[in-house]
């Protein structure tokens, strides 16, 4: 297979998950893949070192519109100010959550009062994960059972 950006042999195959349903596949050569995976950089001369303090200062001053907590306050105390902070600081929290939990998406219990559709989405997420585990453990009977459950839920 040829690289999608030049004519060399594609050696790296990247799947970008766009959301729950859709994804994009990329087939690239080593060089193009490296370029693709590197964060977009604006200025040519070592931009990170120069802009980082500024970015950090700006980030630290970011404030939740609901409870007024600044990101710097969260960084120093480790405690958020209100439930809305998970939205207000979402971009900053994602890598932190990944670090702490190794995951960034809830698949456990959903409040019973939550709309049924949301509950089903949550259950499907959990089941698909269980399916993966079952397959990786070569527990095919279990896998088949989970797959049937997923089909039933998808029909709802």
């Amino acid at each position, binding site marked *: 297979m040829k690289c999608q950006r030049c004519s060399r042999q594609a050696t790296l195959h990247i799947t970008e998950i766009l959301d729950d349903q859709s994804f994009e596949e990329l087939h690239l050569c080593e060089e193009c893949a490296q370029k693709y995976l590197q964060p977009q950089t604006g200025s040519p001369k070592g931009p990170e070192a120069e802009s980082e303090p500024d970015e950090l200062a700006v980030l630290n001053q970011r404030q939740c519109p*609901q*409870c007024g*907590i600044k990101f710097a306050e969260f960084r120093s*105390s*480790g*405690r*958020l*100010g*209100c*439930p809305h902070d*998970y*939205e207000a600081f979402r971009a900053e*929290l994602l890598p*932190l*959550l990944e670090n*702490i*939990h*190794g*995951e*960034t*998406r*809830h*698949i*456990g*219990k*959903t*409040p*019973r*009062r*939550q709309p049924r559709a*949301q509950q089903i*989405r*949550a259950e499907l997420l*959990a089941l698909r994960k*269980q399916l993966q585990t079952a397959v990786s453990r070569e527990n095919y009977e279990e896998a088949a059972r989970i797959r049937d459950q997923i089909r039933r839920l998808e029909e709802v």
Partner: protein
Amino acid sequence: MKLDDLLKNTGEWLRGSGPDSDVVVSTRIRLARNLADFPFSNRASPLQKGEIESLLRERLLRIDNGTRFSYVQVHSLNHLDRQFLVERQLISREHAASEGQRGVAIEPQESRSVMINEEDHLRLQVLRSGLALEEAWQEIDRLDDLIEQRVNYAFSEEFGYLTACPTNVGTGMRASVMLHLPALQMTRQLEKVFRALQKINLAVRGLYGEGTRASGDFYQISNQVTLGKSEADILREIREVIPQIIDYERKARAALLRESRPTILDRVYRAYGTLRSATLMTSDETIDLLSCVRLGINLHLIEDLTIPAVNELFLLTQPAHLQKLQGVVMEPEERNAARANFLRHRLNKN
């Protein structure tokens, strides 16, 4: 509620029975929950904290789950009474020490309780004797549903139950099993076990939770991860590992009896003898000696004492319990004399 009523019993979870209770003392699950429409407790104004407390208190007291909750306003308790609740594992040390309007709802058997305005608005807890993760989960899940019918939880489809600290977000669940591991300690195998646990993301803590010393060879094994795993997965991970640790501990106990019988006999009887005759006793020493006696009972070296009786002594010799039993506030040195006296009386009955 009158706190002194609690003193007559020790709480269901200390009864010392239940599956694998020679090694497993108790099982505990807690859930962190918050109201959607308020700042988290640490960021709430005194007025808001008051609102949160009275709203939740009123809703909790309306729940009828066979039994009803009694409610204690922690901010209006004196230091001794707060300490008393900490010793019974009904509130955290942080909840005892913090400020502002806050409380705890306690069910008569003390197996279910709910802290209000701790780090999160609600901290639900279920405590069970022995290894009982599944039963504890079902119980707390039901309680959670009952509360949820009455309040609006902060929940996001993406991140789950939203908590003040990102380490609890998702399920908000911490499941822990308290183990008594004296033989692994004596044979210096604990390090190995704990390293293996940390590799699979389980935490090991001392008797009273985070940052406390593992006194009396008691250890709490609990999950670290709360996001991206279902409650069932988290419980399964703990359930899978506990039987192995129980097995290691039992093997270590058998090996001690086989290979170092004179040493172990001496340690057990020396501990029992000291508890029955000393005239000054600190709470640390008491815990260490009772731990040895507990091992002695499980090894059938001591026949005239039961596990529930020892469990009760662990609790009643703690500083706040001791003072409440005596009905006076005492300085540490007076306590040491009173504690030794209490132990002598209890253990020389026969």
